[in-house]
């Protein structure tokens, strides 16, 4: 099913999403990848505040290429989500609304998604030029020294993504390939 949703995302909307839904996300989302997650995790261990309020927000696992003059951002597709698996459950338990990335997640992440009524979306990997067209504003708001890995606040309009793990724990990656598997034939 095709759905248009707003970010930040409410718990009610997240609950309505099902693995396999194609969504178009509009609103504000935040980027963070490996190095930013490591820093956020260290901040939490030291009892410090996070640079963003994660409640209801979507984190996009993405590090863009540099923007040309007059453009908000460069190429901007998803990075492999599993590298953030170590950090994601903690953020989900703090109320993170959802994550956008590509690739499989661990059981711990999937459990945390169910426990918190959250959601994991995949954006099409390797379509960074196309996806950048859905990003209308971009601003570095923390960890500037990390370059491409800094935390950015993005304004997106109809950013295309697919629900992979929904709040019920359904996982599109675990079911989709079976439909087309012909190895036994």
């Amino acid at each position, binding site marked *: 099913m095709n759905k248009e949703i707003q970010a930040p995302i409410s718990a009610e909307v997240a609950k309505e999403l099902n693995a396999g839904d194609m969504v178009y996300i509009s609103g504000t989302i935040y980027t963070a990848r490996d190095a930013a997650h490591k820093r956020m995790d260290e901040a939490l261990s030291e009892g410090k505040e996070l640079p963003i309020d994660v409640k209801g927000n979507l984190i996009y696992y993405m590090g863009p290429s540099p923007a040309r003059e007059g453009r908000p951002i460069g190429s901007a597709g998803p990075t492999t989500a599993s590298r953030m698996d170590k950090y994601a459950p903690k953020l989900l338990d703090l109320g993170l609304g959802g994550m956008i990335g590509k690739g499989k997640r661990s059981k711990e992440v999937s459990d945390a998604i169910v426990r918190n009524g959250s959601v994991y979306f*995949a954006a099409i990997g*390797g379509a960074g030029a196309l996806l950048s067209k859905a990003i209308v504003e971009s601003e570095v708001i923390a960890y500037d020294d990390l370059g491409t890995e800094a935390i950015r606040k993005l304004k997106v309009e109809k950013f295309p993504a697919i629900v992979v793990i929904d709040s019920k724990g359904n996982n599109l990656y675990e079911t989709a*390939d079976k439909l*087309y598997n*012909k190895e036994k034939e």
Partner: protein
Amino acid sequence: MREINVSEVTEAVKKMCIDANYALSDDMKKALESARSEEVSELGKQIFAQLEENLAIAASDQIPICQDTGMAVFFFKIGQDVHFTGGDLNQAINEGVKQGYTEGYLRKSVVGDPLIRVNTKDNTPAVVHYEIVPGDKVTITCAPKGFGSENMSRVFMLKPADGEEGVKEAVLRAVKDAGPNACPPMVVGVGIGGTFEKCAEMAKEALTRPVGSHSDKEHIRAMEEELLDRINKTGIGPAGLGGRMTALAVNINSYATHIAGLPVAVNICCHVNRHVTVTL
């Protein structure tokens, strides 16, 4: 003896880094087009349409095809009658990478030390493979490599008794483990034989062979075709969201090996399989 000033190498490297990241080679474009027509899943077809649109936007708006513009990998085939002048060849290559990644608005994705992990901010150093060949030409292939797929690559030190079946199982294992992480449809580079490091290098170089070309060894060609067919029965599909077209090609390079061994390397690449070759 032919003299080549290393500044020519810097210029060529700079241009190749940029070109590779803004447009795919014709063989890759053709392979994507024909894969689109062979895809059976509706979502898969939509994904192919998006990938085509992505390539068109990359060219028209000058946005890199993928934000992971890779670690810069080079294969240098240097004629033995060539003499490089004007400086250090390795430095000249890295200078080209630095200029290309800076002036080309490419992402700087390299950290100077694998454990301390501070970004070098110019995407250097490159990974360079040198080979000395007859003649007085220098052939350079630039293949920026993204790490979503690189991370899913494997080396298997098989036993001779594992034979052809063992090799096929290893390749299929690597592809299935990679799944959606490697941004399918993939190109699968395989190196069989040699030593531990030789098979890995062959697998990487196999990725730069045109998609659709085949090994000139009959038994290897048969294995390329069979493996592609079997990979495209796994159902992983475009973006790992289910479908037929999980891979566009399996390219295998092979070499002599030791009586006690059967090394196999599988270097997985995504649909953004970038490579540009020039001859100086």
